[in-house]
């Protein structure tokens, strides 16, 4: 029984690893670099692929996700239990609208609702990118989230960062830090 318990603990511990990052210059999956004005926590979990997830106060309260260097034909995120043709795939030439639609599919995969509140052009990571604001009603706990995202397509690859947090308190709490991260993102050659 003791070994069983130990096994369970080891198994749980190996599921996700949290690492403190920043403040200062930080690399995102060796594809991007950014400057942090405060410390964040990076969540390393198996099966997340090249996607990198950060949080300040814990995942239910805020989530900063980086989708770095998504290539032509690659899924924005591999959704569980789906065939290849059912995955939301990025294609070179997709306008920002269709990239938002990819993200929308990822958000809605658990039954959450997604609403686009604003989409406009903006400079990001040294290129002509785009920014969008959105609202989500999270299925698992029915918390209303607000979100902001920045993206750009450079050298045929998509670089996207999204930040979602409950609209009461937590979104506003970290927004300036997120904006400063977005403003300092650079793509690594």
């Amino acid at each position: 029984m003791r070994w069983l318990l130990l096994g369970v603990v080891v198994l749980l511990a190996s599921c996700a690893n949290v690492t403190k990052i920043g403040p200062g210059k930080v690399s995102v999956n060796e594809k991007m670099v950014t400057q942090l004005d405060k410390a964040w926590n990076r969540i390393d979990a198996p099966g997340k692929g090249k996607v990198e997830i950060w949080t300040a106060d814990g995942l239910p309260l805020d989530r900063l996700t980086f989708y770095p260097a998504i290539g032509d034909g690659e899924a924005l995120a591999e959704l569980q239990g789906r065939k290849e043709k059912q995955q939301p795939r990025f294609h070179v030439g997709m306008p920002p609208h269709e990239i938002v639609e990819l993200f929308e599919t990822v958000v809605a995969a658990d039954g959450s609702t997604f609403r686009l509140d604003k989409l406009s052009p903006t400079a990001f990571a040294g290129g002509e990118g785009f920014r969008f604001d959105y609202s989500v009603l999270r299925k698992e706990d029915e918390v209303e989230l607000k979100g902001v995202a920045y993206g750009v397509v450079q050298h045929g690859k998509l670089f996207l960062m999204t930040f979602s947090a409950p609209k009461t308190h937590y979104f506003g709490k970290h927004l300036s830090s997120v904006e400063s991260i977005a403003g300092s993102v650079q793509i690594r050659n």
Partner: protein
Amino acid sequence: MDRRQFLVGCGCCGLVGAFPALALATSTNTDVWQAPQRFQRPLAGSEEGGLWAMMDREEAKLRRSMFLIKERPLNDYLTRIATRLAGEHSLDIRVYPVRTPLFNASMAPNGMLQIWSGLLLRMANEAQLAAIIGHEIGHYLSRHSLDRLRDAKSRSAFGQFLGIALSAAGAGGTAPLAQMALVAGMFAYGRDQEREADRIGLELMSKAGYEPMEASKVWAQLLAEINAEKDWSGAPAEKSVLFASHPPAVERQDDLVARAKRLSAGQLSPYEGDYASMLAPYRREWLEDELKRRKSGETLALLEIMLQRSPGDSELRFFLGETYRLRAADGDMERAMNEYRAAAERPDTPAELYRSMGMIQRQQGDHQSAKDSFRHYLAARPEAVDATMILSYLEKGS
């Protein structure tokens, strides 16, 4: 997966059964069926009473859910259908429409009946919806969920599922809809119980004045969707979330047709017009939810079937174009453009159609046409949330 999702999953297949031990008035051997008397609430101290109390708590949460569709006209409409079908039992049944883009309806033993928006979107008329509600009432009146609960195999599966649900909740993760539906499928009723619920449902609907032949059409349409998805993505039909709890079979369809023929007087109504006007305020939002599932095979089949019923419906044609555009397989951009063009010729065309046309024209290098389409969109939606993005496309020459 939270507890509510988990219970929805269970409820749809009647796992969480809590019925008092009243005499069963259904018969599996003959066509003579008589509704039982109203059920009494089980004693609080009994196992069934405990489960009933648990469902009451879930129902209290469901009433507060932001996914519940609360508008009075839709709720009154659904309650009227349930009342027509269930007779005096309708006093014990409460109907809750829930915004979830999957085909599912579930009846809990305490009388909580949930109907998901993905199911409502797929019904062609009121009679088809009555077939579904009648089927669920059939399970309720036959107390099938109690049988499932008493089945040791089911109990063990229940425990397994409870473990999965709790660990998922504890990890702060979410379960994809697909997984939720698949696990729910583990508790599906047996073939005899489905057949019995089908038979009761048909009797109730024909007694209430609905054309019983519509029942088999529901399953025929869903089979068409599932086969289309299998052809497109290779997703096995038995894993389709559309059939979380109601696996269809050709044999079952044939049985429904044969029984309907015996019941139908040929003068019963499908109540098509009533249903279309009830659906109208919600249809666009539910079609958008459907698109986000990215099950192109199923969505294309669904839209083709809906267009067969209403060939002149420009909104449906727009969504057909959208499905092709998002699928983006060989030739899909041309298919999408054909649908957009056909829709554009009709009144009441969604302005977003021009935005989609513009995006395809831009990608195809037809910059002048893209400009025209984007301008058309902006003229119709000057305050759109993406107006500045569209303006930037125009400034860049398309």
